[in-house]
């Protein structure tokens, strides 16, 4: 899919995703080695966005499995279309029992869910397994078969093997420790907060109307906040929100009042706000 690491950066940038060298290298490797990519990192640094950007670059369909507590086989893999099966049975009353039974467990009555969808078919696909850590441990067992051999076993039908491997991205906020077995099957990528230069570029790209000097100030203030011991430090998405807010307010430079009034866009806990206010001397006015 990609020629080189630089090719990855350039083409991702074309879709509006600015990748750090680490991200570009890992995406390139995941494509080359044909291995799933496990992306970890704090919320709001662009883990899900990365999968979307890769899908766009590759001209692939994005198949998304959103994990949550209680997601199960029937949500992740496949389900039988019971209603249709019942209809089939009542439609063919004069058949023998054997005919009817073999019939209703065929492809026609199968409802493929994300994992099966990603494996079947010849068109290019990106499989995004979002927030893998939210799913129960049992689901991980299910993923192991899919991720190591790119196949799914449906007891009534047999094993479905991918003819064309999807590009797989798993994301996790590390709210639960994923199993060693799952980690071993994946390439590991940690997306942290970008360095100042990259973040400035991201802000300029996403909020092009914002004044350049102000964008630089925005990034510096966010950087200072991240260096504090806060319960929830602002992420890239919060930086962008803040830049948009400032733009909407028509600000051209930062000052105490402005920062204090808009701090809520960046910080989501009251004690964080208090701490940042004290540290940045916002009360001095």
């Amino acid at each position, binding site marked *: 899919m990609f020629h080189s*690491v630089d090719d990855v950066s350039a083409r991702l940038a074309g879709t509006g995703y600015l990748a750090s*060298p*680490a991200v570009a*290298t*890992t995406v*390139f*490797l*995941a494509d*080359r*080695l044909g*291995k799933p990519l496990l992306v*970890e990192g704090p919320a709001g640094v662009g883990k899900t966005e990365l999968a979307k950007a890769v899908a766009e670059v590759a001209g692939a369909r994005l198949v998304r499995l959103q994990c949550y507590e209680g997601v199960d086989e029937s949500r992740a893999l496949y389900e039988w279309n019971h209603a249709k099966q019942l209809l089939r049975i009542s439609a063919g009353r004069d058949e023998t029992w054997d005919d009817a039974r073999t019939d209703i467990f065929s492809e026609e009555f199968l409802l493929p869910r994300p994992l099966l969808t990603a494996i079947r078919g010849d068109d290019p696909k990106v499989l995004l397994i979002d927030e893998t850590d939210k799913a129960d*441990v049992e689901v991980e067992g299910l993923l192991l078969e899919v991720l190591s051999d790119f196949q799914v076993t449906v007891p009534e039908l047999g094993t479905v093997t991918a003819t064309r491997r999807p590009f797989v991205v798993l994301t996790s906020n*590390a*709210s*639960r*420790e994923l199993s*060693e077995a799952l*980690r*071993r099957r994946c*390439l*590991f*990528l*940690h997306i*942290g907060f970008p360095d100042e230069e990259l973040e400035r570029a991201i802000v300029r790209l996403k909020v092009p109307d914002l004044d350049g000097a102000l964008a630089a*100030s925005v990034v*510096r*203030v966010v*950087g*200072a906040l991240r*260096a504090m*011991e*806060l*319960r929830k430090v602002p992420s890239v998405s919060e930086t962008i929100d803040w830049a948009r807010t400032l733009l909407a307010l028509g600000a051209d*430079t*930062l*000052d*105490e009042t402005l*920062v204090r009034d808009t701090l809520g866009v960046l910080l989501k*806990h009251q*004690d*964080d706000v208090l*701490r940042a206010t004290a540290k*940045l*001397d916002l009360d001095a006015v």
Partner: protein
Amino acid sequence: MRIGTGETVDAARAVDALGLTDRETLREGLAATLLHGQAQRPVFDPVFDLYFPAGVGGPGTRPADRDDLRERLAAALADNDTALLGRLAAEAVDGFGGYGSPSGTDGWSSYQTLDRLRPQTLFARVRDDVRARGGGAGFDGRLVGDEVRRRIAEFRGLVASEARRRVAERRGRDEIARRAVAPTADRVDFLSAGATQLAELRRTVRPLARKLATRLAARRRRAARGSIDLRRTLRASLSTGGVPVRPVLRRRRPARPELVLLCDVSGSVAGFSDFTMLLVQALHDQFSKVRVFAFVNRVDEVTGLLVHGAADPEGLGARIDAEASLTSHHGSSDYGAALGEFVERYGDAVGPRTTVFVLGDARTNRSDPNLPALRWITERARRVYWLNPEPRERWGTGDSEAPAYAETAEMRECRDARQLGALISRLLPV
């Protein structure tokens, strides 16, 4: 770190795909294939720097003059030019870090380099420099100080890794990789951890707590499906003519344990107690009640301080020192007196549903260990565990009363965060 054959093969394929031309690309490629978590990164990076150094030998410039180097360093710090800072670190180690005669024959020291160079004294100059260039006009002016401080800290790191590389050239990489690269945070020994390592440890609290919480929750879920209650099953079967259609399960009591933590916070073991308190604090919703008591030679309850300080692990020790009265005439720990006082003042905190954790090295400075007090606690509590951060071989040496205490309460060795996590998840009565 555990790295299997599969990872090795992947790493080789990655090197094949990426080529060896770009060092940073190679680093990321190897990290992606070999590592399984971000916690391993602080180990990986120094090892990578050792085996794939950016260069060999000295920087190849003439020996630097101290004032000149400081001059250029100040400029580079003001510009925030990372590449230049790296080169300056190499020059600095080359010029000032060598020891032995002639210099560099015995080794290279980052400590000596930094001691001669004193980059921290450049702080005011660099800050004013940045401000003068208009980088600090208006609101961001107040951020400059912290930024410069961070850059200087980064430079110190660069000097350290440069010195490590130079030493490795002389002594062999394998040995340096084994001895000079710090272990991952969860394996740092509580008793020998330095300030930065303790800070790093504190940051592992939240992930570790989450991991433990899931494990405990899973165990509780499993435990909730109890065994069959025969009497009630038979009773229920009366309505179906004696056929036990619906088995009745024995209902478990929702046993959320009560927890009492009794922590020695005297200097020698403070890091350990600190970390454990934070961990328990982070796990608080797993227990119906947590009470934390700190002692040196007097006991005081610090539960309130912990709740209050949820977001500030840094100042915890200081706050406990300031707000609780833990010492009387002298500052060294006295387990006997502390246990006695605990029984006397807070004895009612311990009941049949409580699990008590005593944290400390059991070094009681030759005073009376007061075993009856501990026995009183073990008799009233559901379980009592004593976690000791000292290696087992040292129990009972010197003024350690560990063996005596171990006869009354179950004593476990607990030296690093990994062990602590494993112990807590195993010992908690969920």
